[in-house]
Each structure stands twice: as structure tokens, then as C-alpha cells.
């Protein structure tokens, strides 16, 4: 500090600001570089995954045909998983927002905790459960495990939406004689629709991207995209992995941008 005392405060402030800016750019480069590299690698004309790529071509996009089964499996799991997660999370959020229950806190905890557990433990937990009840290697096991694991996203998003809701709309509808079901359908749902869709999208995207639970519950017979990428990484090092990654990056990014927009900017 004694050195800084002798320096003109303006110079010192500008110097600090400059250092901070350079630091921020370096970190942002660190954050951006891996994805940029993967996207660039998808267009390589070479045989191997090295950066910078050897040339530009679309040849590896043709290899996607061997990934169609995995893509189909991923979607077949993610859609029902996201639907179940949204209905469970949504009804839990709605009932806790509108009514008081003796077990309310326990329900809220059960709807929030799954995402905080290490995924590998969630996987082992469901594997144990399904072996005990004698059903394994079924795609519904995986769907159910993903729905429980991802319930917290719609639950939290829809709870926020309901908390922001002006209760007088609902009261007006009820006073005018609408039944509870009709009130939910015509008043509450349209007002929190954005949160419901955002919750669904988050769950859908996260299910697509989830690996370890899927691997443990697939019974080693159902390949989802993350499972096939992991397997491919162990045996080959083909640029087609970059192509499928590029596809995944685009889907994830678009899905989350829409979800974030609908939820009204989660981080600002």
C-alpha cells in the first residue's frame, strides 16, 4: 500500500481496471475454448481429433447414421422423463403453494434433494431398487430414475412462478363460481405456463445429457448418446464424436436459451 500511496489515484484505478479486464478475458477464453474447439473439430477433413484441424469438410457428418439409435433412445427417455418430472414437480409446487400439510416440508425436501445427490449414488439407489423388485434392463427404469432425479427443476421453477402470482385473479375466478379444476385450467396454468415449459425444457435437456444414471440402469443394453460417446472415446478417437457433440451443444444451447427466456432470465 505504501507504494500505491505515491501513485496518482487515477492512474492506479485505471491500471487496476485494465488488469481486471485482461484477467476476465483470459478466464472467458478458458471457458469458451473447449466448446469452440469441439465445434471446429466437427468440420475436420482429417482422420484424427487434433486441434487445429487439418482441413475443412463435412465428411464426418455422414457418419452420424451409426448414431441414430442412440439419438432415438436419448429422446425416447428424455421426453417421458421430463413429462413425469414436470407433472410431479408441478403438482407438488401447486399443492404446497395453495395448501398447508403436516408433511409439507418433507414433500418439499423430497422434491428438491434428488438433484443435490451425487448422480452415481442416485444410479446405485435405483439399481438396488429395481433389482429388489425384480425388474431390470427395462427402459422405463431409466425413465423413472431420470424423472425423480430431475423433478427439482420444474418443482423450483413452478414454485417461483406460483409465488409471483397475484392471488386476486384466482380469488376472482373462485368467487365467480369456477371450480378448482377450472380455475387451474383457465387462470393459473396460463399464468405460469412459461415456468412449466421452462421446467420441462430443463428436465428434458438434462436428461439428454445425463450419463452415469443412464449407464447403470441401461442394463448395458440401451445406448443413449452420452453412453455411446463414452464408449467411443475408449475404443477410437474419431471426429464423428465431435460432430455428435456439436449437435448436442446446439440442442442444449437452444433449449436452455428458450427455457431461460421463458423463466424470465434466471441469472439477472
Amino acid at each position, binding site marked *: 500500500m505504501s507504494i500505491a500511496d505515491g501513485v496518482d489515484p487515477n492512474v492506479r484505478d485505471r491500471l487496476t481496471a485494465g488488469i481486471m479486464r485482461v484477467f476476465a478475458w483470459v478466464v472467458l477464453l478458458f471457458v469458451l475454448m473447449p466448446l469452440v474447439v469441439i465445434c471446429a473439430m466437427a468440420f475436420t477433413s482429417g482422420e484424427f481429433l487434433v486441434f487445429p484441424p487439418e482441413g475443412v469438410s463435412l465428411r464426418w457428418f455422414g457418419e452420424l447414421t451409426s448414431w441414430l439409435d442412440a439419438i432415438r433412445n436419448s429422446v425416447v427417455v428424455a421426453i417421458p422423463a421430463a413429462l413425469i418430472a414436470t407433472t410431479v414437480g408441478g403438482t407438488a409446487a401447486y399443492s404446497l403453494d395453495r395448501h398447508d400439510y403436516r408433511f409439507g416440508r418433507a414433500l418439499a425436501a423430497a422434491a428438491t434433494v434428488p438433484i443435490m445427490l451425487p448422480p452415481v449414488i442416485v444410479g*446405485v439407489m435405483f439399481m438396488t431398487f429395481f433389482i429388489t423388485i425384480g425388474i431390470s434392463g427395462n427402459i422405463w427404469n431409466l425413465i423413472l430414475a431420470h424423472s425423480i432425479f430431475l423433478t427439482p427443476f420444474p418443482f423450483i421453477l413452478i414454485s417461483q412462478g406460483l409465488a409471483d402470482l397475484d392471488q386476486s385473479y384466482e380469488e376472482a375466478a373462485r368467487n365467480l363460481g369456477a371450480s378448482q379444476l377450472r380455475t387451474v385450467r383457465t387462470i393459473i396454468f396460463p399464468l405460469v405456463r412459461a415456468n412449466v415449459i421452462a421446467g420441462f425444457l430443463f428436465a428434458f435437456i438434462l436428461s439428454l445429457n445425463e450419463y452415469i444414471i443412464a449407464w447403470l440402469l441401461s442394463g448395458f443394453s440401451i445406448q443413449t448418446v452420452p453412453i455411446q460417446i463414452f464408449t467411443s472415446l475408449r475404443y477410437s478417437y474419431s471426429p464423428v464424436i465431435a460432430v455428435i457433440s456439436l449437435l448436442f451443444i446446439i440442442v442444449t444451447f437452444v433449449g436452455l436459451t428458450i427455457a431461460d427466456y421463458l423463466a424470465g432470465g434466471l441469472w439477472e
Partner: protein
Amino acid sequence: MSTEEPTLGESIIENDIWPRTKYLIVSYPAAVLALFFVLPLLLLVVVSTFENIEGGFFQPAFTFENYVRFFGSDLFQGRMIYTLQVAGLTTASCLVIGYPLAYYIASLDSELWRRVYLSIIISSLFLTFIIRAFAWQVLLSSDSIVPTVASSLGILQEPVALVPSYMALIVGMVYVFLPFMVLTLYTSIREVDDSLQEASRSLGAMPLTTFRNVTLPLTKGGIVSGSMLVFVLSLGVYVLPRILGNPPQWTLAVLIGNQVGVEGNIPYGATISIVLLLVVGAILAVGWYLLGGERRVSI
């Protein structure tokens, strides 16, 4: 809701024509979560005391043999300590890198730029660990950009592969968990009342003094929650050590996955899971206590 005077609307909701609606709606999520979350979780605890049968099955035994095996084994003890070390180093690195970054973004005047920076930070947040680890595998492999640049700068003698290694694992971990730290700190820094910093400055305090005596103490909550979040998430990593590390870099989560998926010893996998869960729970409890203490002080 119940603590306030019920309004007309509320009294109608409570005395519904169909009074059981209240329990009818909640029965669906409550039943699903009880049956498919609480029950399997309890079952996991029970099965951790079971005996393994060859071929991925188990039978009731009610012994603590699995726990004795875990705490008696240098290998598993060592992996536990190693996992905590990796999580600790990841958390510390994320904090050291994340705090100045979050502080910088929060201090920007333009809302547009704040949004742009935050979007970049969260751009990869939900992308599968597999692809993000794979990206670092490509970046750090021998013919690739990082070793080439490092060797031309003289940091490396020649461009050798930097992956798989402990360093690659930590780089991957920091990359993956930095967004959580930055977002938590950013929210906390934005909440600090600017006038407090101005007051400190106008009273003649140097920027560093203002930072140390005003900003830092006021963002302690963010530092604690961000660190806790990153630490707890780091404890559970499975994919990164598998892709960016060798067996010496494998964490407890990898061991759990191997016990269950490769060895077919589910009771022992359940035991290690319970131990890891207890560690996670203990850390969350400590964090809770620290945050609670923080709140008491600030009142």
C-alpha cells in the same frame, strides 16, 4: 398463507365443494416421491448391510461387514481422502478465479455486457460432462494446441500429452464447476449496496481497504454457499476422473460405479454410497451452520 387472516377467496378455497381436493392433488407427487425416492433411499441403507451374491445380486444379512471392509481398507480410505483433496483444490481454484471474475462482471455498468459475460459463463453449464471432458482431452493431447503453445513458450520442453493426469483432472474440474461459483458470487456481489462502498471510498479508504473491509465481509455468504456448492458437486464426479485421469486419479464415485457396474457387488457399492452421502450431508450441515452464523452476526 395460514398465518394471515383468510380472505374471502381463501376461505372458499379451504371450504371447497369437494373438501378432499387438497389431499387428492398432493397424493400424486407424494406417492411418486415416497415410492420412487424415499423408499429406494431407505432400501439403499438397508442393502448396505446385505451380503453380496455372485452375479450382481444380494441377500439379507444385517452385518456391518461392508462398513468394516471400507474403514479397514487403506485403498478405500485413501480414495476417500484423495476425493476430499481433489474437491478442496477444485473449490479453492474456483474461488480464486471466480471471485475476481464475478466482481468484474458485477462492476460493469452496461447491462448488455453483464448479460453477455454471464451467458458465456453458463454456456456449457448443462452440457454433459462427457463432451466437456472430451473437449479437454482433445485440447491437452500431444499434437494439440495447449502442449504446442506451452512448448513454444518454453513451459514444456517438447509438446507432450498432458492428459491423462492429475493436472488435466483439476483443469477439467475447475472448468466444469467455475460457473456455479461465479453465478453464486455474482448474485451475492450484486446485492451489496453500492453506497456502502462509496461511503468507504469518500472517507478516504484505498480500493483494497474498501474491498477487504466492506465488500469482502458483505459477500461472505456468497463465498460460503459457492464454495459449499462446488465442494459437494466435486465430491460426486465420476466422468471427469474416468476421461481425464488414470486409475490413480479415480475418485470415490468411480469406485462406487466400478463396484456396482463392473464387480457386480451392489451391497458394497451401497456402503460406499452411504459413506459419501454422510460426508456430503456433514458438509452441507457445516455450511448451513456457517450461513446461519453469518445471518445472526449481520442482524
